[in-house]
């Protein structure tokens, strides 16, 4: 199911990373910032894939971990910690939170799991709104990074890239390990997985913890870059939704899918309606509806079918997608 990448695939991946590393040498700061945003949502999408795509538990907690990581970095940097150390601490903290929450929450199935994860994110937002240490609803300032715009744009870009590469590599090795097979077994049939000896509780918690670590680090980078945090900005449920939709657009449950989806969606949306910033969320809504109706199994699946059946059958493929689940 998950075959190891061939030499060509590794080469392609390496070339992609190399291109991203070299990118800042060739383009303007604006373009670098755009790619930084793409990498950020790619991190969220890839991480969601651990719990939502591979294990089949549609979590909406990405925003909770993103926000927790952001606030950890903010609070610790104000206390004088080094930026990279705060990223590590944020990741550990979120892993612990995921572990503690995972035990009760992962017993739930279906909608109840979704609602519980919604509730977790909203609860943390309310908490950040009311605690003194987070600055409450007024928000919290971070130390400004020193250096010119060229320097700090690159600094944040490479930090984000580092987290993204870490997330993708982790996902690659997990899916080629017995862990990944356990996740997929749970997704396909949890009872059967338990019967065949998968410790489902343990595996689900591991998936949840894995899905919490990278958003926390991404959140930390986001916080340092924004230099100012408000609860409503970082505990935004849209982060969770974007992660899910991008995974779906690319293809749920694959390593490359979420990555492809994130790049396509962010880049296309910027390209197509960058001028209508006011209506960004409306366009996102339309995209979501179209993706759910026409390409629910992702672009990767569609492109494979197109490859085997030819471009002429694209209409038929899309039509069969929309008719699969209707009443």
């Amino acid at each position, binding site marked *: 199911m998950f075959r190891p990448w061939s030499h060509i695939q590794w080469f392609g991946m390496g070339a992609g990373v190399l291109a991203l590393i070299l990118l800042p040498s060739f383009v303007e700061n604006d373009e670098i910032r755009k790619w930084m945003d793409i990498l950020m949502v790619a991190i969220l999408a890839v991480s969601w894939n651990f719990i939502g795509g591979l294990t089949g538990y549609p979590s909406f907690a990405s925003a909770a971990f993103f926000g927790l990581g952001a606030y950890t970095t903010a609070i610790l940097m104000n206390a004088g910690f080094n930026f990279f150390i705060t990223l590590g601490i944020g990741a550990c903290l979120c892993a612990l939170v995921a572990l503690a929450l995972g035990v*009760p929450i992962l017993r739930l199935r279906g909608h109840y799991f979704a609602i519980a994860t919604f*509730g977790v994110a909203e609860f943390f937002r309310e908490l950040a709104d009311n605690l003194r240490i987070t600055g409450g609803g007024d928000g919290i300032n971070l130390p400004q990074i020193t250096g010119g715009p060229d320097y700090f744009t690159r600094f944040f870009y490479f930090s984000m890239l580092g987290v993204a590469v870490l997330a993708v590599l982790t996902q690659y090795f997990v899916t080629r390990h017995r862990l990944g097979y356990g996740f997929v077994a749970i997704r396909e049939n949890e009872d059967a997985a338990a019967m065949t000896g998968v410790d489902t509780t343990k595996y689900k918690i591991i998936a949840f913890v894995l899905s919490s670590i990278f958003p926390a680090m991404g959140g930390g980078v986001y916080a340092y870059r924004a230099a100012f945090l408000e609860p409503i900005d970082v505990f935004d449920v849209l982060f969770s939704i974007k992660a899910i939709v991008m995974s779906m657009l690319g293809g749920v449950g694959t390593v490359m899918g979420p990555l492809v989806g994130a790049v396509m969606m962010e880049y296309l949306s910027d390209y197509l309606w960058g001028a209508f910033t006011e*209506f960004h969320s409306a366009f996102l809504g339309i995209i979501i*509806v179209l993706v759910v109706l026409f390409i629910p199994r992702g672009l990767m699946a569609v492109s494979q079918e197109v490859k085997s059946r030819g471009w002429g059958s694209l209409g038929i493929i899309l039509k069969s997608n929309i008719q699969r689940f*209707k009443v």
Partner: protein
Amino acid sequence: MVYGQILINSILLGGIYASIAVGFSLVWGVMNILNILHGTFLMLGGYVTFWMFKLYGVDPFLSLPLSAVCMFCAGYVAQRGLINKIVRAPMFMSLILTFGLQLLVVRLAIYFFTGDFRSVQPSYAGFSISFMGLSVPFVRISIFVLGVLLTSILFWFMGRTRTGRAIRATRMDLDSAQLMGVDIGRIYAITYGIGAAVAATSGSLVSVGFAISPVSDVEFLSKSFIICTIGGLGNITGALAGGLILGLAENFGALYLGPGLQNAIGYVLLILVLFIKPSGLLGRKGFE
């Protein structure tokens, strides 16, 4: 006396919470859809009442049927045209689909209605009834009574009418209902329309007593989540019980913990109930 007043307030709030959540519970129970558009229907219903009052001077309680009919049609079309296409897909597809629609509708609502908070202020808004030292605003009582009435009408409809029985049959066993000649696509659309109509009516009620804005829908939605989870799915009494419990918990929590954490209490309650009894306090087995 403070406790008596808070108790009265909690019960009045609980009644309106129940009517907010009951449509959500219906749609979830029958079609297994977590309907993110629910709060949006509430918000739009509130705006129907607001604009009727503002532009034509229609009394807010008279525009309830209009907002119900408008949103029934909107809900019917949304279900027939879009949601029915994927209703048998894994459950979170419909969740994401309704989320997409919610983003679109709310954005348009902000564009057309602006993001300002609005509230209907009829001439009798200031009246209040007092007895035994407790004071209760007249509008709040009317909202409470109408909210409970609405819930009762739904209860009657589901139990006593042909369409209501078809809806319940569909929930119990989709395939058997289809074999008995129930047009599933139509029943689903009607159910969704009813959910939207009930939501819109309670939205109209809310717009009289409270302020609404295009983004209030998220608040209504999260209240519905909490109430349905606490009370449990599969019966209307669950929504009533959940509404009352949430009303009590919020008001008394605000008294002891301060008003800032009022919303957080609901989420704590939600996670606690899910932890202890995932099917909800009054939920029946098999509906989780």
